[in-house]
Structures are given as structure tokens and as C-alpha cells.
């Protein structure tokens, strides 16, 4: 049985924990709004980009001269997994769901005899994957100094990946991130970015003139497309992270509240018991006289 003083300290410490989690929840809520707005603002560009590229890919894709970013290297032996996670923890299952998906994919690829390489974006993913796949890691992108995710961050990552692709370091690249659905639900997603794949068949609705040429534009657009997809993923991830943190901290705050209630009851009971005990001692002492 803990002493009254212990209980009091305990309640005090849970109360300050609750204050912290409450504050973190509110900060996450504010950041979530901003992250959502950023993701929203980036959507029109990404959608148009994808539509135009899909149209181009449909018309150029079949030919032999198709760029390698679209047609691939003709092999899928070396697979690059780009695992995008958060820089910080305390956001529920956010990081581990991404890592779990990436890990399953890596095991599956290794079982099929492929070579796997891993590039991590964000500290948490690297920490979790290092244990199992430390020898497969070829790089890490640190975004801990980034206050506001900008397109230039995505460009930096894309440049790194494209340079590795040009150097022949891998054949297929897949990015792993959490797609934001709502505050309580984020969907871990794997998306292949190299060679480019487009969802759905692009209907040849309009016949465009191309300046300078279809191939020229496509060659210009494909690297931008990679950067755009990474940027979208970064933004989705940022929104998901804040959403996950918000609900995790909401739970933590509620749990701390319940714990305080429970501890307070125990505290009051034992105080009452002590008082009763002292009274009985006094009364029985007086009766004995």
C-alpha cells in the first residue's frame, strides 16, 4: 500500500503528463490544419501533371525510344524502397504502420530472389529498419530541420533518386508513405514511381500539338513527375503524422484523466482510513481509562 505522500506525488506527476499531452494534441491540431491546407493546395498541380503525363505515356509508351523512366530498364532485379516516415515519435502507429508495410515488401522481394535497397526519409523509419535491414540501406534523407515542407525538399529527394537511377543502381523504385484519410485513419501506401505507372487508361480525348516534341516534353516531364509524386507523398505524410499524433495524444489525455480519477479515489479512501484509524485509537484509549 503506497503512502499518502506517494499517492499525492503520483497524482501530481500524472497531472503534469496530462498537461503535456493536452498541449501536444492542440499543437498537432493546429499543424494538421496547415498540413491539410498544403496538401489541398498541391492537389491541382499533381492531378494535371498526372493527366498530361498519362496522355503522353499512352502515345509514346509503346515505341522503342520511350524514356527509361517510363519504360523501365527491362528488369526488376534491383528494387529500391523509399521509406518515408516522420522525424518524431509520439504519434501512435504512424511510423510503425509504414515500416511494417515496407518490411513485409522487403521480405517478399528477398524471398523472390530480388536485390533490395532501402532509402529512408525521416529518422524514425531508419531507426526501426536498421536492425533488420541495416546492410541494405544506401542512404538517408534528414528532414528534421525542415519547418515547412516545400517543393524544394521533394526536388532534393527526387534528384538523389534520379541520380541513382541514372547510375544504374536500381531498376524499380517504390515509395512508402501514409495516405491521409481522416484524423483517425491513415492508410499505409506503397506506390511505384520508377518506372512510372499511371492508374487507369488515359482516353485519347484531345489530340494535342506538342512543342518541342512528344518525346522532348515527356523527357522533361518525367523527372518532374517523380518530384511531384514525392512531394505529394511528403505532404500526405505530414498531414497523416499530425492526424495520428492528434488522436494518439487525445487518447493519452483521456487515459491520464481516468488515471487521475482512480488515483484520487484511492488517495481519498486511504486518507479517510487513516483518519478513522486515529479516531478509533483515541476513542478506545479514552474508554480504557
Amino acid at each position: 500500500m503506497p503512502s499518502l505522500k506517494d499517492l499525492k506525488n503520483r497524482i501530481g506527476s500524472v497531472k503534469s503528463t496530462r498537461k503535456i499531452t493536452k498541449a501536444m494534441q492542440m499543437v498537432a491540431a493546429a499543424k494538421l490544419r496547415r498540413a491539410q491546407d498544403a496538401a489541398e493546395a498541391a492537389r491541382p498541380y499533381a492531378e494535371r501533371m498526372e493527366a498530361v503525363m498519362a496522355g503522353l505515356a499512352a502515345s509514346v509508351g509503346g515505341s522503342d525510344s520511350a524514356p527509361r523512366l517510363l519504360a523501365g530498364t527491362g528488369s526488376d532485379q534491383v528494387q529500391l524502397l523509399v521509406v518515408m516516415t516522420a522525424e518524431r515519435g509520439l504519434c501512435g502507429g504512424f511510423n510503425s504502420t509504414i515500416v511494417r508495410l515496407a518490411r513485409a515488401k522487403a521480405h517478399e522481394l528477398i524471398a523472390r530472389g530480388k536485390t533490395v535497397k532501402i532509402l529512408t526519409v525521416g529518422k524514425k523509419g531508419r531507426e526501426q529498419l536498421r536492425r533488420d535491414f541495416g546492410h541494405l540501406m544506401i542512404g538517408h534523407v534528414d528532414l528534421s530541420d525542415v519547418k515547412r515542407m516545400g517543393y524544394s525538399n521533394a526536388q532534393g529527394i527526387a534528384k538523389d533518386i534520379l541520380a541513382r537511377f541514372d547510375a544504374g543502381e536500381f531498376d524499380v523504385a517504390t515509395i512508402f508513405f501514409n495516405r491521409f484519410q481522416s484524423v483517425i485513419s491513415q492508410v499505409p501506401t506503397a506506390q511505384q514511381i520508377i518506372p512510372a505507372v499511371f492508374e487507369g487508361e488515359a482516353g485519347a480525348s484531345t489530340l494535342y500539338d506538342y512543342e518541342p516534341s512528344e518525346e522532348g516534353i515527356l523527357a522533361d516531364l518525367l523527372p518532374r513527375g517523380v518530384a511531384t509524386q514525392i512531394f505529394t507523398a511528403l505532404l500526405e505524410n505530414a498531414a497523416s503524422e499530425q492526424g495520428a499524433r492528434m488522436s494518439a495524444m487525445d487518447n493519452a489525455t483521456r487515459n491520464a484523466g481516468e488515471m487521475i480519477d482512480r488515483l484520487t479515489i484511492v488517495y481519498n479512501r486511504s486518507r479517510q482510513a487513516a483518519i478513522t484509524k486515529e479516531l478509533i485509537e483515541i476513542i478506545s484509549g479514552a474508554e480504557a481509562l
Partner: protein
Amino acid sequence: MANTMQFDLVTPERKLASFAAGEVQIPGADGDLTAMEGHAPLITSLRPGVLRATGPDGLKSFVVSGGFAEVTATGVSVLAERAVPIEEATGTIIDQMLDEARSLAAAALPEDRDAALKLVHDIEMLRGTVAI
């Protein structure tokens, strides 16, 4: 203005402009062009330059670089990697673009050097055009 078309200017980070425009002057990679309502469908990549659109509130100009423009009979969408309204385009921003282009040109492979040098040249021209 009788004949207008939808004009959209988007960058990866935000939508910069969206209004009904009478005509849009686009700095295309192969030369400037003006798109008006009923233009033949066209996709062109952009060179760094000034994009001008005549809208309900008069002429709007933007400094754009990288990306492409999609012209249809009923609208123009410009997807630029970087775009700023010309009022905000200060010397610093353009110098920054110039520095990036120069370092790109310095690092370029021989077969890409011409394109990279053209980029530097385009931005230098742009710097001359924009009143700073």
C-alpha cells in the same frame, strides 16, 4: 471582352491564379505564343520568362520557370515549377534562379550543356525584362 477562356496557373505548392482570360502570352520553349479562345490544342514546355494574361482585372504578369502549358480551345492551364507575380519578383529571386541555373550548367554533361546554357541565357534575358 466577348470571348474568354479559363486560365489557371498552378505551382506544386499552390494555385496562383484562376480566372477568365481574354488572351494569354506564354513563354514557350520554342518561342513565345499567345493563346486565345479557340486555339488548337497544344502542350508546350516553358522556358523561364514572363507569362501575361489579360483578365477581368486587366493584365496580370507572372515570372515563371520550368514546367509546361496546356492549351485547349476553352482554356489554358500553366503548370510551372516556380511562379511569382511580377510585382513580387525581386532581384533576389531571379538571382537565385540564375545561380541555380549556372551551377546546373557547370555540372551538366556535355550533351546537356547547350540546354543548360540556354537556361542561363533565358534567365539573364528575364532579368533584363523585369524592372527591378
